[in-house]
Structures are given as C-alpha cells and as structure tokens.
C-alpha cells in the first residue's frame, strides 16, 4: 500500500517540524528592553508538559500530512491551538523567577509558527466545510470567547504583552474606545453622506464622473499627509467659528483624524452605491414603472433592496480599512491603538507594539468575517426568494 500525502499537509508538517524542534518557543529577557534568550519547547516548559505539547503538535502534523477526513483534521487543529494557547501562559510563569517583576517572557518565533501552521490547517478545514454564514460568525464567537476566557482566567498574566497591558490598563480601554469610535463614527458619517451622494450620482450622469474623480484623487493622498493637512483648516475653524471648539473641533486630536477617515470612506460607499444601482435589472425597473410606482417608491422598494449587497460590500471595505487606518491617528494626537504601536516603535519595545497591533488586527478580522457573513446572507436570501 502506498501512502498518499495531503499537499497542504506537507507544508504544515514542514513548518511544524521546524517550529517545534529548531525554533525557540519563548524568549526570556531580564527586563523589557534587553535582547532576549531563546528557549526551545523542552526548556520553556516543565518536562512533562513540554513532552505533552511536542506529542500534540507532532500527532497534529501527522494527521495533517495524511489524507485524513475533515473531522480529525478539525480536532487536531483545535486541540493543538488550544494546547499552544494554554501552555504559552504556563511557560510564562515557569520561566519567570519567583518574585521577579522585571523579567519578561514573550512568545518566540517557534510559537508563532506553530500557531500559523495550525491556523492554516483550521482555515483549510473551515473553508472545505463550506459553513453557512451564521455558522462562521458562531465559530468566530466561540474563538473570541475562548481567548476572552484565557485572558480573564489570568493564565497569560505572566506574558510580557499582558505586563505591558497591566501597567496601562486604563489607557488601553480609553484608546480602544477612541479607536472604535473613530472607525465606526467615520463610517456612519460616510454612509449618511455617501448614500445620497451615490444615488444622486446614479441619477445625474454629469455629476458622476466629477464626483468619483475627486474621491479617487483623495484616495491617492497618503494617510499621514491627509491627517496632517486637516490640522490647519480645523484649527482655523476652532478659533474663528463660535461653538466649533465646544463640539470638539480642534486642530490636532480626534477631529482631523475623523475627517480624514470620513474622506477616505466616501469613495467605496459612493462608488459601490453607483455600481449597485447601475446593476439593477432594467426589467425590474420597467415592471415597477408599469405598476405605477413613483420615483421615490421605486428607489426604496425596488432599486435600493436590489443594490443592497453591493453597497454592503463597500461598507465592509470601509470598515476594515478604517480600523487599520485609525492607527495612524496616533501620529496627530488622535488616540487609538496606534498610540501603543508608535510608542513601542519609539522605545523598541515590541510587546508594546503587539499590545496595539493585536487588538487592531483582531478587530479588523472580526469585522471582515461578520460583514462577509451579512453580505452572503442578504444576497442568498434574495436569490432564494425572488419576490
């Protein structure tokens, strides 16, 4: 009998072999900025747990390597990821000398590669399972709950990123809420302005090219420059328009960041509204006209519902992009998770960078999955029920 290997499994097994046996699992540093010492799995964990983790990842890699059915592959990836997540915390407390508050233990390349390999396996299984949209959101919720439980249980508290968090817990949540306010608020403003503008562009041919060109040009201005350029006009407004300063308009800070994100958000919203409305079948419009619908009824009862999935796709692009761009706001004093990223880069403290970057990535990722699911639900519902 010849063994047949799974092609993706070969890639995963190669990564796991390198990560588990050659790469360091954790880094130990005497304080937060000195260079670290690498520790392989067996040195980073108590012997029994180290052997257990090695066994789990090796078995997981073999399951991935062979052409096994989906359920064992799913189980292998979930068990390996869970074991990695729990044991990196154990490694933190195992490596930190008792009572030493300066020592820092951080996950090292081997850990991240193992996470990557098994996430790849999990992603492959989930893709092949072709989950329904609500099921994908469910998987996301379970993963978020698991990470949340690990965070609350304190098993990661001895890791360096959470030590950075512990010394900034208050500002972390303050910057986090600013980040979300910036991303969601500018999206809301862009939808409120962009939808009518898109409808107008759809109806008035002359307007369309001009508006879309201007919005396209705005996209070419680099984000840090646009944020900077808005400082002056908003500063002027704050000084010269009565009441402007009272509602939070200032030259530096959140206001220019908000306006910049709003300007970047307009193009996808307007362009997708125009594309969505243009894609409404002529027959649907003719039928609506034949039934004696007014322009207004046609817009709200026919065109808009049919164009909705396309418009939603624009909103998804904007939301994911805004969550990422909001990190730049920190450069002009606008707050957000970018504060930690840029502070960390300035102090070459990578744990601090991670403290800002990981929540940003997680937020953008969650937003993408949820909106993709919503888009799929709205477009399949329409296809299944043509009423």
């Amino acid at each position, binding site marked *: 009998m010849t063994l047949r290997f799974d092609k993706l499994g070969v890639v995963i097994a190669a990564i796991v072999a390198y990560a588990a046996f050659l790469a360091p699992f954790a880094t130990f540093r005497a304080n937060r900025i000195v260079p670290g010492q690498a520790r392989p799995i067996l040195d980073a964990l108590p012997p029994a747990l180290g052997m257990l983790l090695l066994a789990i990842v090796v078995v997981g890699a073999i399951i991935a390597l062979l052409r096994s059915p989906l359920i064992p592959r799913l189980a292998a990836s979930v068990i390996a990821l869970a074991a990695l997540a729990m044991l990196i915390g154990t490694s933190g407390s195992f490596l930190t000398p008792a009572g030493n508050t300066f020592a820092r233990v951080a996950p090292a390349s081997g850990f991240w590669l193992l996470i990557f390999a098994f996430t790849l396996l999990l992603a492959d299984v989930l893709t092949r399972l072709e989950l329904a949209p609500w099921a994908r959101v469910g998987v996301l919720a379970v993963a978020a709950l698991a990470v949340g439980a690990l965070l609350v249980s304190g098993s990661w508290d001895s890791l360096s990123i959470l030590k950075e968090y512990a010394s900034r817990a208050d500002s972390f949540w303050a910057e986090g809420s600013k980040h979300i306010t910036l991303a969601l608020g500018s999206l809301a403003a862009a939808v409120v302005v962009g939808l009518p503008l898109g409808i107008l562009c759809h109806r008035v041919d002359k307007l369309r090219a001009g508006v879309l060109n201007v919005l396209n040009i705005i996209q070419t201005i680099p984000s840090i420059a646009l944020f900077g350029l808005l400082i002056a006009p908003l500063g002027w407004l704050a000084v010269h328009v009565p009441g402007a300063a009272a509602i939070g308009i200032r030259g530096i800070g959140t206001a220019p960041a908000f306006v910049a994100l709003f300007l970047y958000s307009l193009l996808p919203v307007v362009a997708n509204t125009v594309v969505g409305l243009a894609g409404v079948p002529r027959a649907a419009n003719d039928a609506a006209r034949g039934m004696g619908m007014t322009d207004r009824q046609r817009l709200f009862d026919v065109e808009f519902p049919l164009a909705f999935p396309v418009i939603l796709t624009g909103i998804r692009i904007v939301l994911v992009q805004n*969550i990422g761009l909001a990190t730049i706001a920190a450069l002009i004093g606008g707050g957000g998770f970018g504060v930690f990223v840029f502070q960390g880069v300035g102090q070459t403290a990578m744990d601090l960078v991670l403290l800002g970057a990981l929540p940003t990535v997680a937020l953008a990722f969650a937003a993408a999955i949820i909106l993709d699911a919503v888009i799929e639900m709205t477009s399949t519902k329409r296809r299944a029920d043509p009423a």
Partner: protein
Amino acid sequence: MKAWLPALLRLALLVLLVVFIASPALFEPLLKPLTENGAPAIYNQGSLLTLTLLHLRTVLIATVAATIVAVALAILVTRPAGAEFLPLSRSLVNIGQTFPPVAVLALAVPAVGFGEKPTLIALFLYGLLPIFENALTALTTLPGNVMEAARGAGMTGWQRLVKVELPLSAPVILGGIRLSVVISLATATIGSTVAAKTLGEVIIAGLISNNLAFVLQGGLIVAALAVLIYDGLSAIERYAARRMGREMQ
C-alpha cells in the same frame, strides 16, 4: 477639444511635479504663508529628488517581488497539481487584507530591524493581495472555447500557459498591479515611521515641527506620483486589452 484636455492636464501635472522636485526653491514664496515663526518652507534635511527616487525604488522593488510571487501562486493554484490549494488561498487572501499596514510594519521591525526592510516587507505583503486576486480571476475566467482550441491544436500545458493563458490574462493582471502600486505609493510614506527613506520623512518632519508646508509638499508629491502612475498603467492596460481583443469596462 475635449479629447486632449485630460492629456494636457496630465502633462501639466507632470511638468509641475518634475520642476518642483528638481528645484523646489522656485516654489518657496507659494509655500511660505503656510509656515510660522520663519520656519523653512522647503524641506531642508535632504533633497526632495533623492527622497522621491528612493520612494519610487522602494515601491518598484516591492511591486516587482509581489508581482512575481502573486502571479506564480495564481498559476500554481490554477494547475491541476495545485488545485487543492485554491479554496485555502482564496480565504488566506481575504484574511491577509484585514491586516493593517501599520501593524505589519511595526511587527516586521523586530525581525529585520529599522529602515527600508520592514517597509519592503509591508509593501510586498500588501501588494500581493490585489495582484493575486486579479490573476486568479483572470486565469479562472478564460473563455472555454479558446482553451479547447489550444488543447485541440496540440499545445502542451506549458505552451498553453505561456502563449494563451498569460497573454489573455495580462490586462486583468495589470489592473491588479496598478491597484497595488497606488496603494504602495501611499503606504510607503508610513514606512518613514520606522526610519525608511521615503517621502514620508518630509511629512513626518512637518507633523513633528508643526510645519504645514512640509506636510503639504510631501503629500502632494506622493499624490501626483500616484495619479500619473495610475494613468500611465491604465494606458498600458488599455493597450494590452486592445491587443488581446478583450473589452475593458
């Protein structure tokens, strides 16, 4: 007269850009009102020309690397041998797009140090996605009758790829490269937060010293480059599409 107006505008923009980069001192009176307390109006910690060239070089290297890898990957997953990877590569591309550039940049620093390298990595990763997506779309939506004809004419798999599939996909792949270049031109400025020599340096110097003239000149040079390169690549794309007889929307 309408037909030549856009071309004339572009030409004017190009001339303006070249003159500005070559001898920015000519424009000092224009930018002076934006400065305060007698601060310099023209970036004086390095030549704008050098920074522009370095900026373009960074974008070029990253885009060439991204194009090679993305097209190779797209070819791989559309062959029978790599078909297993197709669904996964689609989801990976989707996931990859959710990573903010600042995060990629900052996380690359511990691995490769400060300077140009983390910027190249971030631009490379960011540039991959649009090119891969477009290459995949192009290679999976080739007209079936053309592929049948190529097979019927006795072409080998390699010949079909090089003589039929790639030339037919070229316009759509070029569209992906164009998107990727425009994104990279803007993203490269963020590279200056980790000490890469790009036009972002000018903008950041302006932000730090509260000098609006710096922010404006840095931002406008990048925007003008993006507009001109976007138009140039669109023209090449239209040419390629005409040669392939594919209609562009």
